[in-house]
């Protein structure tokens, strides 16, 4: 299976004058010393990382994100750990326990450092998911009319069960360590899957290492897709381990009846690209259980996440077509489950989003454009981050392609894993998923891409120099990929991190705002909606998820956009929004201060809260008044200070919204005639409502 690498040259003993050294003793001692090198490198790496944790000021993350705030100690730590791993795996063949510890440390260093450094959980979307969880934990129900994601409530309800049972005050407590927990949980099915494709332990370990290094997509936060990924890997494991056809020829029996030429073609491919490992058919006593379990996992996936089952349908169909899955009805079962759930549980979503669901079906080129060039927008630094992500994905894909060819040359095509690596990208043809489908497809394919990429570095060679060259090549790759990972994964840290002051500002709103008050922000990059989601309206001026996204280019555009926020709106402007405006919207530096100053100057907003990173402006409640309609159909608002007429339909709607349905003027005429005239500020800021000084006289 593997070739023992001899110790490097130049380690022969050289006895000191007058000292007699037994033959081979020095060589043995040198060899023993060399065996300690991986342990020493790992130990020093941990020390350097701990030192870095104490020295990093995470708040100084610049336009390229976290990488600009990290100290040299951090890079020393990841370099030393990479060196220790390569020494342990490719040179010294250390124990698997050391390798497991190194992989766990790698996970923590890459995916957990931020969790340790930052006191508040990062990534605003995770806070929103905590709000969904909090609602279910509090009410024991979902609320699909409020948000489409409630139509796929599996994750939120499961976490609500946990939070509610354990009496956790707020699910926000789960957010901080979720990425580390999910990545460690992924390790189990990943190892199991890799054991199904190759007996070479080096390839498995390298594939694991590459998976965690290349997993920059950031889908491992507190989210449905992060949890469903475990179910996805487990489903693929069951399919690949127990339900591959045992005989190449029987794999295409179903095709031979329909199209003998296609069957012959598929058979020739499969013969040229055999899987390295034999199938292990499930014994009869397991088969029924496994099929039921597989169906159950698919059902839970369907009620938990929108995209994962769609991607899995494509994968299962391709596995069946490639003769790698004997359960030919499995894709049909999944389609029926998905259709059933969408027809029953997700009506609230699709009834208003038919175009979003099927509008891009089959438009592969357009979908790729939306997922690639459509995302390249913003300042130079943001373009650099987005470019790094695309380049990273391209490099991983290229390495996987080279690795696949290497294995074909060695007579191991691994068609099953090649299908698993390629088929997730079919989802691009189904839906652009708001420009995120490519990222998700990359995430789904990553374990298998990593396996093929790892195969480059583990070929059998009788030459020690070639083995050392491969070890050196992997070390260089690992060390080079880490900065790229940091930029790709944490490049948006300026607006994806959450400071305690920002969290405090939003807590202030939820603690003090009356029910029904509107919480407004400039962008959605804020830690909001983490509690009481049904008690308030939430609106963002720049909603990146809206199909007709508003793109302000100047502060005056923003002033105009928030000028007419309804009464009792609370506008929260934070450091994170300011960073997002600069990086993604190319707004001028300091735009947030300018915006708040301009709004306060209009007299419509008051600053009700401010700290280092956030300001809250509030538009006061409307004055007490009565909404009237005359027998002629004219509508008026009577305030203590005078009469106002709503002259347009929009203004009438606004009066009805604020003051309720109009009352008949004739019934209240005496009271109306007693009203006195006075001067009040512009009530609605709309030209359609005008003061009517002599209303009583005219009537």
């Amino acid at each position, binding site marked *: 299976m593997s070739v023992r690498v001899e110790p490097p040259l130049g380690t022969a003993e050289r006895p000191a004058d007058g000292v007699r050294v037994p033959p081979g003793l020095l060589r043995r001692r040198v060899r023993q010393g060399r065996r300690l090198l991986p342990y020493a490198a790992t130990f020093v790496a941990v020390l350097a990382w701990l030192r870095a944790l104490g020295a990093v000021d995470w708040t100084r993350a610049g336009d390229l994100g976290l990488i600009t705030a990290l100290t040299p100690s951090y890079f020393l730590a990841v370099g030393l750990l990479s060196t220790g791993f390569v020494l342990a795996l490719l040179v010294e063949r250390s124990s698997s326990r050391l390798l497991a510890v190194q992989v766990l440390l790698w996970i923590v260093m890459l995916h957990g450092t931020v969790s340790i450094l930052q006191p508040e959980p990062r990534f605003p979307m995770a806070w929103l998911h905590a709000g969904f969880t909090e609602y*279910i*934990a509090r*009410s*024991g*129900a*979902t609320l699909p009319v409020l948000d489409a994601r409630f139509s796929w*409530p*599996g*994750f939120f*309800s*499961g976490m*609500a*069960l*946990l*939070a*509610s*049972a*354990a*009496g*956790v005050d707020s699910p926000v*407590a*789960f957010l901080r360590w979720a990425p580390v927990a999910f990545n460690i*949980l992924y390790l*189990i*099915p990943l*190892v*199991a899957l890799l*054991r199904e494709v190759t*007996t070479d332990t080096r390839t498995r370990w390298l594939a694991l290492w590459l998976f965690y290094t290349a997993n920059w997509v950031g889908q491992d936060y507190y989210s449905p897709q992060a*949890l469903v990924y*475990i*179910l996805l*890997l*487990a*489903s693929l*494991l*069951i399919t690949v*381990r127990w339900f591959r056809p*045992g*005989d*190449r020829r029987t794999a295409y029996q179903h095709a031979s009846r329909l199209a003998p030429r296609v069957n012959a073609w598929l058979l020739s491919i499969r013969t040229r690209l*055999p*899987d*390295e*490992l*034999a*199938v*292990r*058919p*499930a*014994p009869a*006593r*397991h088969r029924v*259980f496994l099929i039921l*379990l597989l169906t*159950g*996992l698919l059902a*839970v996936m369907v*009620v*938990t996440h929108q995209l994962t089952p769609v991607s899995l349908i494509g994968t299962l169909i391709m596995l069946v077509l490639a003769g790698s899955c004997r359960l030919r009805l499995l894709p049909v079962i999944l389609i029926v489950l998905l259709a059933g759930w969408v027809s029953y549980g997700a009506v609230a979503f699709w009834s208003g989003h038919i175009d979003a669901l099927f509008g891009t079906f089959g438009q592969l080129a357009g979908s790729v454009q939306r997922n690639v060039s459509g995302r390249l927008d913003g300042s130079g630094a943001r373009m650099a981050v987005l470019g790094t992500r695309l380049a990273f994905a391209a490099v991983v894909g290229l390495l996987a392609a080279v690795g696949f060819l290497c294995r074909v040359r060695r007579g191991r095509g691994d068609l099953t894993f090649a299908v698993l690596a390629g088929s997730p990208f079919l989802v691009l043809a189904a839906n652009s998923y708001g420009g995120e489908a490519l990222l998700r497809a990359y995430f789904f394919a990553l374990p298998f891409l990593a396996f093929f990429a790892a195969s480059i570095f583990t070929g059998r060679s009788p030459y020690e120099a070639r083995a050392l060259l491969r070890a050196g090549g992997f070390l260089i790759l690992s060390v080079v990929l880490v900065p790229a990972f940091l930029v790709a994964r944490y490049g948006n840290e300026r607006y994806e991190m959450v400071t305690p002051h920002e969290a405090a500002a939003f807590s202030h709103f939820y603690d003090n705002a009356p029910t029904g008050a509107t919480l407004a922000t400039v962008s959605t990059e804020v830690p909001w909606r983490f509690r009481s989601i049904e008690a308030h309206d939430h609106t963002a001026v720049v909603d990146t998820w809206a199909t007709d996204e508003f793109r302000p280019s100047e502060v005056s555009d923003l002033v105009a956009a928030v000028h007419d926020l309804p009464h009792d709106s609370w506008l929260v402007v934070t450091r994170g929004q300011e960073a997002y405006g600069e990086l993604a919207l190319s707004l001028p530096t300091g735009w947030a201060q300018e915006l708040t100053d301009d709004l306060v100057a209009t007299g419509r907003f008051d600053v009700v809260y401010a700290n280092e990173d956030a300001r809250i402006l509030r538009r006061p409640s409307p004055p007490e008044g009565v909404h009237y309609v005359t027998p002629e159909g004219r509508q008026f608002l009577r305030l203590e200070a005078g009469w106002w007429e709503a002259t347009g339909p929009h203004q009438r709607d606004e009066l009805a919204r604020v003051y309720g349905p109009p009352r008949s003027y004739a019934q209240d005429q005496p009271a109306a005639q007693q009203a006195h005239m006075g001067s009040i500020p512009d009530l609605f800021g709309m030209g359609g409502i005008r003061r009517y000084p002599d209303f009583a006289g005219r009537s």
Partner: protein
Amino acid sequence: MRARRWTSAAVSALGVVVAGLLLAEVEGGITAWLTAAFLLSGPGLALIARLRFDDAWVEASLVVAIGVALTIALAQAMIWSGQWQPKAAVVVIAVVTVPLVATNCWNMPPRRSRSTPDTVATSGTKR
């Protein structure tokens, strides 16, 4: 075999601890993480321990997947039925699961030989 027994014993103990914490109304982060660990390991282990899969990693993968799926399914069932009782649900899971898992500590059939039909290879390389 010994590892499997230790695992069963540890998960059983975890289930008892979690049930005890919930009944004693000890609330907070530690209880949440312990409950999560139990939900991820207990129900799955109770279901598949007797099936005797011959690969610990495969077994662990299925245990975790079953734990996730059962938790979600149970939560959804409570929502749909309008009976939202999370604490009672976890305690019931512990009461049902712990005896099933605990019996694995002393009542384990011997591991089957690798030459059984379970491992017959019909193509490719034998592992």
